[in-house]
């Protein structure tokens, strides 16, 4: 009777995530490892965990690629601003155009840096700004849709894959009890 009512004070450590577990726990509350499972069940769990870790590495790589895409956009914006300034140095608005390009490049670079801390929010923010600039240019001059189309497709692809990967990474981190 006593043993049933008195909560166990003894603890084990999970072989998978090293979290503390009570002796009578069937599964680890942190990662779901079958503490009392058969050897086969425990092996399968660890194999699945390794597979998820590989997927997480791949997702993190995709997220990094999306944050690099933001740096590429920052660089391209800066270069195009400098080229426009060089071509139209004496124009009345050349200075303003250069200043706007420098500021947009700085914003993209800042979002790219922020991506290392908050990947999902960073990629969504950067993608929104990029989309707005593309739409804005396309409305003011529809021919700009085709200019640098391969670069645009590459960047948009990086953003879409990055957002999906950031969601996947978030889910896998929770499943693997990381962060």
């Amino acid at each position, binding site marked *: 009777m006593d043993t049933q009512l008195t909560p166990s004070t003894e603890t084990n450590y999970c072989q998978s995530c090293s979290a503390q577990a009570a002796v009578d726990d069937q599964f680890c*509350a942190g990662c779901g490892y079958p503490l009392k499972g058969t050897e086969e069940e425990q092996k399968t769990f660890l194999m699945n965990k390794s597979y998820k870790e590989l997927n997480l590495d791949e997702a993190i790589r995709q997220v990094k690629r999306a944050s690099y895409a933001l740096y590429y956009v920052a660089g391209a914006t800066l270069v195009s601003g400098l080229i426009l300034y060089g071509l139209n140095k004496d124009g009345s608005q050349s200075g303003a155009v250069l200043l706007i390009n420098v500021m947009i490049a700085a914003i993209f670079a800042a979002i790219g840096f922020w991506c290392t801390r*908050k990947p999902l929010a960073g990629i969504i*923010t950067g993608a929104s700004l990029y989309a707005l600039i593309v739409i804005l240019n396309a409305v*003011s001059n529809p021919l700009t849709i085709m200019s640098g189309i391969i670069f645009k497709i590459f960047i948009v692809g990086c953003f879409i894959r990055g957002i999906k990967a950031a969601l996947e990474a978030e889910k896998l981190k929770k499943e693997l009890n990381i962060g």
Partner: protein
Amino acid sequence: MDNLSLDIDTEEVQLPRCGNCDHPIHQGSRFCNHCGHALGKIAEESTEEKWNAIRQTALFFAIHAVACCLFSFIDYFKTFSWSIVVDVFLALVSVIFFAINWSRLKGVLIWHNFSALRLFGYCCIAIGGSLVVNFIVGWINRSLFNTDFSYYQFYASHRHSVALAVFFVAVMPALFEELGYRGFLLGKLMLVTDAKQAIFISSFVFAIMHRSIISLFWLIPFALLLGHIRVKENTLWYGICMHFCFNFTAVMLEIIQVRHPI
């Protein structure tokens, strides 16, 4: 011994229970320690739900961006009639997207724990902020760009210019931008990420949609404040009142400046 039994029972009743085996779960657990069932938002469908939320917000953003850019850059649309068409269209877009997610978002239309004092405080902050922003923006426009932008000038030639300006500059944006950005967009983004990040993303999108680099410096902090209040108070109404006060102050200052130039 009876006392101990009662203590444990009470503790177990208060603990959350596993949805699969009904075993009590300790706070912070990610898996049930009895059946191994994944708890909370770990389940597969939550990622699918997040991706759907992102797709909806992207569509909302794209419609707003195209409509705003068309109105700003195509001369054909730069008329009073088209401005009303665009305003009404964007308002409808906000209402439709909010209505599609009605069951999830309707809670923010309820004014929880209404406080007149808090409302007064928020409105004072908005009016003060608007006065400061208008003074600084006016000074920047005059000294750097040698120009003076005014929303009111767009309506000045009409017979009911003041009423039209107040309605289209203060009332419409306060209601429908709040419904769209702090209601729908922020609500959907909070499904995808945590509240702080969702507030930042919705504020940034709201700010860039105004298509002015310099305005980002005051639009982002203002939108962050509105987003924070929306999350803190769990209602749109404080934000709507603040947004109205901010825009109303700006348009009234313009009306005064146009009618009584210094």
